[in-house]
Every structure is written in structure tokens, then in C-alpha cells.
């Protein structure tokens, strides 16, 4: 017979250990030497590629691995190689470079007082550029403020983007939104919210609507590593799973959420991709600075969604190379050289290296393209500024401030508009 045990006394003396509260901390702070040598990064080509109809339970290891295609020499290796032709690769490179040139100019414009705020996506360009090329314009993207590359990939006019950033007379959003909060339904780009995480369940609902209607469109959404803590993210996951919604759920793990490292979002001991497992969703973890890997993973997830097999969670492992926004100073909370020694490099440099390795590109061509794009952005900037900047020149008509609150303006708004004297 098994020996019996007595329950601990409900009251009275206990001989128990004192608990203590754990607060996670990043490994390196300003003034310290960052060192990523202990990061476990699988070799390019090492992660297997399951069939798109694989059951989530049979591919859980992908949530812990990392899909990587480009090796150190810029050669594509392994089962995830999307085998893109040079023209497609060059388009991807150009999108990423244009995104960076655009960011650089608008960042400077904010510094010159031409607008209130700006956010760059430096180092993360591959995430949006590759996805935009896989998805069609009929699919709907539900981005955060860091996927401006989606619009750029779709040739949305730079001038219109700038007009939005300047809240000027030609701003498509009529001066209502904070800079970078674009919207373009015709380009499959959902209106950006300032409230983190809200877009994720909305993307799932949009995808459910497509399924409900018997259409063939899918949705894709992006969320930052930090924002996955919001309830919205988890609510989205359960709906995506239960209703097998045709949606791609992207987590952009750029290691930081303003000043908080990924460990504050619970990403230190578990991968963000692994959150899919409890919801019975397939998860892919991707080298987010490898254009080919992002492309291939998105293609896999899109095919799965289009085959009515439901949602996929993709974690893009990347690094926020610059400050959170123009309001931020990252040197206050992380070593300044972290970005430089980030082991997964820079997405533009890596794709360039690949094209050179293919014999399709050269440093001179890269430089020429860079100059061409900078000039393109400069010209767009000059044009946009003729329509005004935040504090100078033309603005949208003040009257428009009272429009679109409701479909029809009710007596309150009519009265208030009159009170303002317009």
C-alpha cells in the first residue's frame, strides 16, 4: 500500500519559504557592451518546410526554430528558398531602399519642425516589403505604424504619404490623424489606429467576412512584440483558431517596445511564435531581416489561408535599429552599439549581397539606385511642401473638422460649427 500523507495545517506554524517577486531585466544597459553570442540562431536552410496542410500539432518545432534562407555568403539555401527571379528580387530591394529613404527624409522634416511626430522602420523593411509582394491588393492589410513599406511596395504616391505626415491641404486624412497613421482601402491598407493591438481582431473579423461571403480574399495583420500583451491579440487568436479565419497574424519582434525589452512582453524564455500552440494555430518563426525568408513564410501562410485551412502566426525576428519615434532617445535605455552588432544584419544589405552573389547586381548599381531614390523622395518632398506643412502654408478646410463624425451632421455639430464661425 502507498504511504499516506497529511494535508498541511490550515493554520498555525508553517515552515515555508518566503516568496519573492521576479522582475525581468535586459542583459545590457547603456554603458555596457552588448553581446548576442548566446542567441540561438539556427543555420540558414536548417528549418524544415512542412506541407501547407500540416496540422498545427505536427509542426510545433517551427515555433522555436527560425526560417532562414540567405546564408552568410548571400546564397539561398534550404527548403524555404522561394526561388524568386532577379526582377522580383530587385523590386523587393527597391521597395526597402525607398522605404528607408522616405523615412530618413520625413525624420529630418520632423526635426526641422515641419510636423509633430514621425516613426521609422529602419532595419525592419523586409517585413512589410516581402509581405506586400506576396499578397494581392484585394487582400486587406491591418498594419501598425511600422509597416509603411506596404504602401510603398504598392506604389502609393509618396507625395500623398507626405501630405498625411504634414496634415496639409492635400492630406487624404484631412489633417485628422497623427503623422504616419495612413489609410488606403484601394491599396488594401487598413486605417491605422494609435491604440495598440486593436487591428488584430479586426483583421480576423475581416477574414471571417470574406469566408462568410464565399470570397477568395484573405487578411494579414501586424503587431509589435510588446503589443502582443494586449488582450486584443489573444482575443484575435482564439477567433482565428475557432473559426479558422483566412488571416496571417504577423508579430514583428524587433526586441523593443519603446524602452521595454522583449522580456517584459514575456518573450525571453518562450518565443512569440509559440503563443500559437495553445490556440492550435500553426506558427512560423522567421529571420525578419532575410527578405527571402519573410517572402517564403508569407507565401506558405497565404497559401494555407487561401486553401481554407485558416490562420497562421508568423514571428518576424528583427531589430528596431533606431529610436521608437522622434519622441524617443534609445541611448537612455540600451547600449548604442546593439543595433550594429545585431547578428541578423540589415535586410537591405543582405538582399543586395544576394543579388551580387547571383551576378545580378553591384555596389555601383546599388549606389546609383540609392541616389535615384533619394532624388525621388526629395522631389516628392518638394511637391508635398507646396501644399503646406503642419505649421506653415495651406491646411485642409477647417470646416472638414466636423465632417465624418457621423454620416450626417446632426444639430450639435451644425451648431458647434457655427459657433466656431465657419
Amino acid at each position, binding site marked *: 500500500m502507498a504511504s499516506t500523507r497529511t494535508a498541511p495545517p490550515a493554520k498555525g506554524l508553517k515552515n515555508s519559504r518566503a516568496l519573492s517577486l521576479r*522582475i525581468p531585466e535586459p542583459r545590457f544597459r547603456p554603458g555596457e557592451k552588448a553581446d548576442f553570442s548566446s542567441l540561438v540562431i539556427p543555420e540558414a536552410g536548417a528549418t524544415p518546410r512542412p506541407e501547407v496542410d500540416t496540422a498545427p500539432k505536427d509542426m510545433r518545432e517551427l515555433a522555436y526554430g527560425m526560417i532562414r534562407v540567405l546564408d552568410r555568403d548571400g546564397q539561398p539555401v534550404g527548403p524555404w528558398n522561394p526561388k524568386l527571379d532577379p526582377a522580383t528580387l530587385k523590386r523587393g530591394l527597391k521597395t526597402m531602399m525607398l522605404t528607408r529613404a522616405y523615412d530618413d527624409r520625413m525624420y529630418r522634416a520632423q526635426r526641422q519642425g515641419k510636423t509633430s511626430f514621425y516613426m521609422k522602420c529602419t532595419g525592419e523593411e523586409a517585413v512589410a516589403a516581402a509581405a506586400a509582394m506576396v499578397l494581392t491588393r484585394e487582400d486587406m492589410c491591418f498594419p501598425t505604424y511600422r509597416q509603411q513599406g506596404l504602401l510603398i511596395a504598392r506604389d502609393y504616391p509618396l507625395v500623398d504619404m507626405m501630405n498625411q505626415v504634414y496634415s496639409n491641404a492635400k492630406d487624404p486624412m484631412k489633417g485628422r490623424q497623427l503623422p504616419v497613421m495612413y489609410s488606403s482601402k484601394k491599396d488594401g491598407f487598413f486605417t491605422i489606429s494609435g*491604440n495598440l493591438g486593436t487591428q488584430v481582431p479586426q483583421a480576423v473579423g475581416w477574414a471571417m467576412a470574406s469566408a462568410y461571403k464565399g470570397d477568395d480574399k484573405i487578411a494579414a495583420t501586424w503587431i509589435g512584440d510588446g503589443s502582443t500583451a*494586449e488582450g486584443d491579440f489573444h482575443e484575435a487568436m482564439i477567433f482565428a483558431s475557432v473559426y479558422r479565419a483566412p488571416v496571417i497574424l504577423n508579430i514583428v519582434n524587433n526586441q523593443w517596445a519603446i524602452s521595454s525589452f522583449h522580456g517584459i512582453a514575456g518573450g525571453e524564455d518562450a518565443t512569440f511564435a509559440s503563443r500559437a500552440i495553445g490556440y492550435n494555430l500553426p506558427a512560423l518563426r522567421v529571420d525578419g531581416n532575410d527578405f527571402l525568408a519573410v517572402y517564403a513564410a508569407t507565401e506558405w501562410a497565404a497559401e494555407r489561408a487561401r486553401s481554407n485551412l485558416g490562420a497562421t502566426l508568423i514571428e518576424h525576428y528583427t531589430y528596431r535599429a533606431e529610436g521608437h519615434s522622434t519622441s524617443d532617445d534609445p541611448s537612455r535605455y540600451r547600449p548604442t552599439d546593439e543595433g550594429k552588432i545585431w547578428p541578423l544584419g540589415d535586410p537591405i544589405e543582405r538582399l543586395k549581397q544576394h543579388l551580387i552573389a547571383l551576378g545580378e547586381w553591384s555596389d555601383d548599381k546599388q549606389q546609383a539606385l540609392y541616389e535615384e531614390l533619394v532624388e525621388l523622395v526629395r522631389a516628392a518632398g518638394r511637391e508635398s511642401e507646396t501644399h503646406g506643412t503642419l505649421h506653415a502654408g495651406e491646411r485642409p478646410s477647417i470646416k472638414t473638422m466636423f465632417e465624418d463624425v457621423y454620416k450626417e451632421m446632426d444639430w450639435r455639430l451644425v451648431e458647434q460649427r457655427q459657433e466656431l464661425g465657419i
Partner: protein
Amino acid sequence: MNAMTKTEEAKLDAASPMNMIQAINSALDIMLGRDPNVLTFGEDVGYFGGVFRATEGLQKKYGLNRCFDTPITEGGIIGTAIGMATYGLRPVVEIQFADYIYPGYDQIVSEAARIRYRSAGDFTAPMTIRTPYGGGIFGGQTHSQSPEALFTHVAGVVTVIPSNPYDAKGLLISAIESDDPVVIFEPKRLYNGPFEGYPDKPVTPWQKVEGNLVPEGYYTVPLGKARTVREGQDVTVLAYGTMVHVAVAAATEAGVDAEVIDLRTLAPVDLEAIVASVRKTGRCVIVHEATRTSGFGAELSALVQEHCFYALEAPILRVTGWDTPYPHAFEWEYFPGPTRVARALKQVMVG
């Protein structure tokens, strides 16, 4: 908990011209020092010291456990604070912008506000939520809102809005010591200096504002008590937060002898102070930055009507933000600045 240490007593006399952030930081510093049950947390609050720097230096001084970063989940921040408070701690949480408090709203409305009532006092939630609110910094619709009426409407929550560094510190200490849940909306436009609502006028930093002295030690400003900022005979202006300064400027602009009352606590509001003033002046203008419909001004207007009807010589007027989201490009057309307030002051004088 109320016993003062010798150094605190010594510091009582010492006062310095702090800005509002420094005053809030000082309140937290003092309460962390006095009471081991006080702790503070929120997004970017720990090592970085908060995006507005209200918790700067506190993690270093009091350790990781007393001042720390949280995951980005306002529901999680407020929900765990409630759990801690019911255990006996006095958590002070920061919601980075009032515009982001909504994911935590259910925890405030259905939980923090009602725990005492539904358990017949068995459990209580003595906690403080600090959050910057209001416009005037070109923050667009998600960094400019004034959602105070969503909280004053909730039975069981104390709602506080300071308008200067002295009150910010004293009210925050009172909030931390309160046995009820308190939401403090901090007018972010006032963090660095008073703002009269003239966007082109350079801001005078609080450090240079005459009479702005904040004691370095412990003191409280009582919850539920208004303050008369400017005495006057002709009309009572009810205001709070940024609008207190706008109202004072408007009185000057209008040349009207207005009595400006800074409510400081919105719920429970200082009815006595309101009634005494309106009975004296016979007129009332209510000013807030929040949208008009169902704003806190509606409650104030009802109270004045109920308690001062026979003293009123003119209809009560409200000057508020419009019933639209806060538009980025039209910040100053939206903001109910001194010119609009002055117009209302002149109008009630005629009425």
C-alpha cells in the same frame, strides 16, 4: 503610516519651484519611502522612468520591486493592481496616456469601483491610477483625449485633476492614502508650465512662475475640496486642469470680474464651494476641454441648476471641446481657448 520621520519634518519647511512632473515624482518618492506597501508600475515606468519622466530615478532608489516596467496591457496593469490592493498593498499605476486607459476600463468600472460594495467591505481596492490627459501638444486623437466623464459617471471611483505642481503632489499623496480607488488625470500640457491657451505665447516654466513653491516633504491636499483661484463678483467659472489657466486668462481678456474655481476633485465634487460662489455671483460658466455631450460640464450644470436656481441671473453656459475626435491639424480650433471662454463670459453678463 502617518508618523513622520525626522528628515521629513526637517524637509517640511524646505520648498522648491518644481514643475508638475517633479512634483509628481516627489510625491511618489515620499510615499515609496514612507510606506513599504506602496509600489508603482506601468509601461516604460521602471528603468526609463516613464515617457514623461514621472518615475525617473525611483527604480534606482527603491529597487526593481518597487518601480517596474509592465507588459503593454492596460487591463493587465489595472487588474493586477486591484489584486495587489485587495492583498493590502497600495499600488500606483501609470497608464501612459489617458487615451489608452480603455482596455483597462472594465477592470475599473466593474471591479475596482465595486469591490467594496459587492463584498460589503470584505475586500477593498486602495489604488491609484495616474494618467496624462488633454491636448495642446499636437498629439492627434490618441494622445489628446479628456475622458474624465467616463470615470465621474462610475460610482465607487474618485476622479481627480490637478492644475499646478503643489496640488499635483498633495492630491497624489492623498490619493495613495485613500482607501478607495482614485483616478488622477494629469494635464500633460501643464507638466512644464502653466498654459493659458495662447499657442504662440512661449511657455513660462513652472520654475519661473511666481509663488510656485512645492514643499519637498510630505503634505496632502484633501480630496473633494475645490480651490478659488481668482476671486470675483460677477460670474463663477468652474474649471479644472489646463482650463483653470485658460479661464483666468479669459477673465482678463473679457475684462469681467470672474471668480474662477479649480475643482481639483471631480468626484466627489465640492458642491459647497460651487454653491457658495454661484449664489454670490449669480452667473456660471463651465469650461472643459472634453467633448461637450455628456461631458462633466453637464453634471456641473445640473448641480448648479438644482442648487442655485433662484440665484441665477443668466443661463449657465458651457465652453468645451467640440463633439468630434481631437483633430491633429486643428488643435487650436478644437481647444476651447481664452477667446471662446471670454466670449461666454461676456455673454452671461448680458444674459
